[in-house]
């Protein structure tokens, strides 16, 4: 059968892809072997990157997109979607990942920003983007640039959930606050938070962001993941939390189960038993300003 017109890379396809990830766990992996472990554990997708965030912290220097060879190996190793991280504003890294066949691009503050003024013009791409945000204004600016999915930033590589909680509470709380505003107040609020008024109004009407909203940045245990779900996340990204724990296979499965049963403490208790040590955590207050990743991009 001849089809008249096939349309690729539309907003509906991008947001639709993101909505298929809901209720899922997306895991950071640095090679094919880790990707297989993640898939086996029930991850809905894997995020390919050169080093997990906690190693980026330790090693310092400029953190960039992963080696394309590694990305290809990961793509070939699994049948679930493969995402990839690029530096904020680095549209050529994004072009490269799109060419490789990556299913979603994470324009991520975890890598060293390439542009301190502009984010990538994501509407020019056929593949969907996910971007980090700390509050409603930041989330809506990214959506306005074409992000098909938001993840709250948290503070990656710390194994400390406190910032993930803060950012999810910010966004959910701001949306709840919109409920009590009339249209003029919302337009004024949109100006305050430097977000497009029509997107603020859309959030108010829907009672949520117009795109899927995951949690990220500091999730290290099944309880952390379930807490983020109870706070309103549509799903979670787990970075260093899996492959920096002492038993990655067990931790990965337990986090998938905890997200699936996020409202059932008895299940979370059962799956949390005997997992070995979670990744070592960092106290946020001990980080120097230049070690804080969440303030990159705004």
């Amino acid at each position, binding site marked *: *059968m001849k*089809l*008249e*017109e*096939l*349309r*690729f*890379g*539309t907003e*509906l*396809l991008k947001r*639709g*892809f993101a*909505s*298929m*990830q*809901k*209720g*899922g766990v997306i895991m950071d992996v640095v090679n094919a072997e880790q990707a297989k472990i993640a*898939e086996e554990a*029930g*991850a*809905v*997708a894997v995020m390919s990157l050169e080093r997990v965030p906690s190693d980026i912290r330790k090693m310092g220097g400029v953190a960039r997109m992963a080696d394309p060879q590694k990305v290809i190996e990961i793509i070939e190793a699994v*049948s*679930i*979607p493969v995402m990839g991280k690029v530096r904020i504003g680095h549209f050529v890294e994004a072009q490269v990942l*799109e060419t490789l*066949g990556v*299913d*979603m691009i994470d324009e991520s503050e975890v890598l060293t920003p390439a542009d301190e003024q502009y984010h990538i013009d994501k509407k020019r791409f*056929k*593949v*969907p983007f996910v971007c980090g945000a700390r509050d409603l204004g930041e989330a809506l600016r990214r959506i306005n640039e074409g992000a098909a999915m938001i993840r709250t930033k948290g503070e990656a590589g710390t194994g400390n959930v406190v910032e993930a909680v803060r950012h999810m509470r910010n966004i959910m709380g701001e949306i709840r606050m919109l409920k009590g505003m009339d249209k003029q107040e919302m337009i004024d609020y949109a100006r305050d938070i430097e977000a497009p008024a029509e997107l603020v109004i859309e959030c108010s009407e829907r009672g949520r962001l117009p795109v899927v909203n995951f949690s990220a940045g500091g999730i290290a245990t099944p309880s952390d993941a379930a807490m983020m779900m109870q706070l309103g996340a549509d799903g979670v990204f787990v970075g260093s939390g899996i492959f920096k724990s002492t038993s990655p296979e067990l931790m990965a499965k337990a986090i*998938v*189960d905890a997200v*699936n049963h996020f409202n059932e403490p008895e299940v979370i208790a059962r799956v949390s038993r005997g997992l070995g040590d979670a990744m070592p955590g960092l106290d946020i207050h001990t980080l120097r300003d230049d070690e804080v990743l969440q303030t990159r991009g705004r």
Partner: protein
Amino acid sequence: MDVKIGILALQGNVSEHIDAFVLALDRLDCGSSSAVVTVRHPADLEGCHALALPGGESTTISRLIDKNHLYEPIRNFSGGIFATCAGMVLIATHVDDARINTLNLIDMTVDRNAFGRQRESFETDIPIAGVDGGLFHAIFIRAPVATHAGAGVTVLSRLDQGIVAVEQGKHMALSFHPELGGDTRLHERFLKKIGV
């Protein structure tokens, strides 16, 4: 009749399926006498006339069906099943991936990600047999196709790559996502088949 529709809510785009069924039931003037509920445990299936298997990651959902002891209850479910995308993979008899514990409810062989990766996802208008009112706007996201359908299966639509819409008995399987487009003609056809 009072009708109750369950949506399998283990992973995937559950809320879009709820919204689409609510809209379809409204359009059939059954909105007030119906309920759309989520299904996470075997007991949730009780009293349901139909079950939707949503889009999502089929390997993940298959694993969670087993873990939540839902495999036998879904296999033995007496109502109709409405399966889209990942759901079409799960409901088949044969799939090109041994990790999927297929439900064996529609006699067909399904290839996952048959069109390619996300950049090859597309939307287009397709003809569907038995659906009046012109072409159907179909949204294919890393979609599967059926490469073979058994004698008892009615093929409703086919593209060059394979079969994208089928019915067998009370069940319907689609490789695309009618729940994303606002067009409820396929939902309505399915609901009428189960007696709504």
